């Protein structure tokens, strides 16, 4: 499902503040797997997720997602590919605070040519699934951390993606909510989706639903 071949990502190349975020990474994630990338802060977990999520292009190497070599696609096609196959939960949630829960969840649907009724139906299903119906017309800034996390998950799932990426999903949650989150992830995995999570939280990488854990340090994937 996901294949990373000698991928590197360099920020500010050639400048004094150059950062080698990912260095010659190789990774293969099979369909339906849940893989956790663990490592200390600054090890390149987020950068690797961003490359897999087609949000940025690698400086070297290749990324193949769902059968396509996305690293070579023009920007427009990368966006389309991301839209169709990938859902992302960001560490900071990256929700638009002044929009409602419903509007934030529907965000990926607006550029599609689907009818308003279909948009509303998909959003309603996710609100129900994540037990957020009562909050649907609340502004995001009025929600707690856990609720915002659920909105972020709903938004990531609204396009019915094959692949779900999550960057430190438990960073702003307490233990109880973190457990809830992993239960949700397990359910999502059982739906046949491939999940890659970047986290240094033991609650995440020790969860029963995780198939594999990968260690990263200084931008490199460690063997084992």
């Amino acid at each position, binding site marked *: 499902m996901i294949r990373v071949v000698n991928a590197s990502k360099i920020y500010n190349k050639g400048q004094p503040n150059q950062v080698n975020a990912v260095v010659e990474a190789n990774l293969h994630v099979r369909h339906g797997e849940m893989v956790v990338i663990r490592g200390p802060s600054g090890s390149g977990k987020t950068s690797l997720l961003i490359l897999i999520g087609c949000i940025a292009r690698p400086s070297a190497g290749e990324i193949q997602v769902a059968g396509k070599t996305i690293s070579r696609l023009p920007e427009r096609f990368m966006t389309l590919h991301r839209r169709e196959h990938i859902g992302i939960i960001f560490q900071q949630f990256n929700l638009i605070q002044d929009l409602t829960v419903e509007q934030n969840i529907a965000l990926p649907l607006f550029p599609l040519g689907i*009818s*308003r*009724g279909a948009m*509303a139906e998909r959003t309603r299903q996710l609100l129900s699934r994540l037990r957020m119906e009562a909050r649907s017309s609340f502004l995001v800034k009025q929600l707690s951390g856990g609720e915002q996390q659920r909105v972020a998950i709903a938004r990531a799932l609204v396009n019915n993606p094959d692949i779900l990426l999550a960057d430190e999903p438990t960073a702003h949650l307490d233990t109880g909510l973190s457990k809830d989150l992993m239960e949700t992830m397990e359910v999502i995995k059982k739906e046949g989706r491939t999940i890659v999570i970047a986290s240094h939280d033991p609650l995440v990488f020790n969860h029963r639903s995780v198939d594999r854990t990968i260690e990263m340090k200084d931008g490199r994937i460690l063997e084992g």
Partner: protein
Amino acid sequence: MNREDLLRPSACFLSMLALLLVALCLCYVHAIYALSQDSKRETLRMGTVSVLGSADLAINNAARYIRHVSLTDVSTPFQDCPGGLDYFPGAISVNPPDFMGYVTRFEEVEP
């Protein structure tokens, strides 16, 4: 198209835009209609102009060089009467005297 579609924000916005466009078109139609209705006045206007010999508009009669702009000589201030106001820029900022307050009925007087 169901009720939900009709009430969506874009539908409301486009309806408002359409209404404004219609209002503007109505103004345009009104202008054309008013011009066409003006034909009676046109005959009277032409007749008046040929009797008077001048088409100058009587809206600046404080100074003769303004009243008959087309038939006069080089404009200079104060040439009309002693103490006459300099036309510009006073004309923009000073109100004319109000004779409109006098109620005058134009009745036909019996001989």
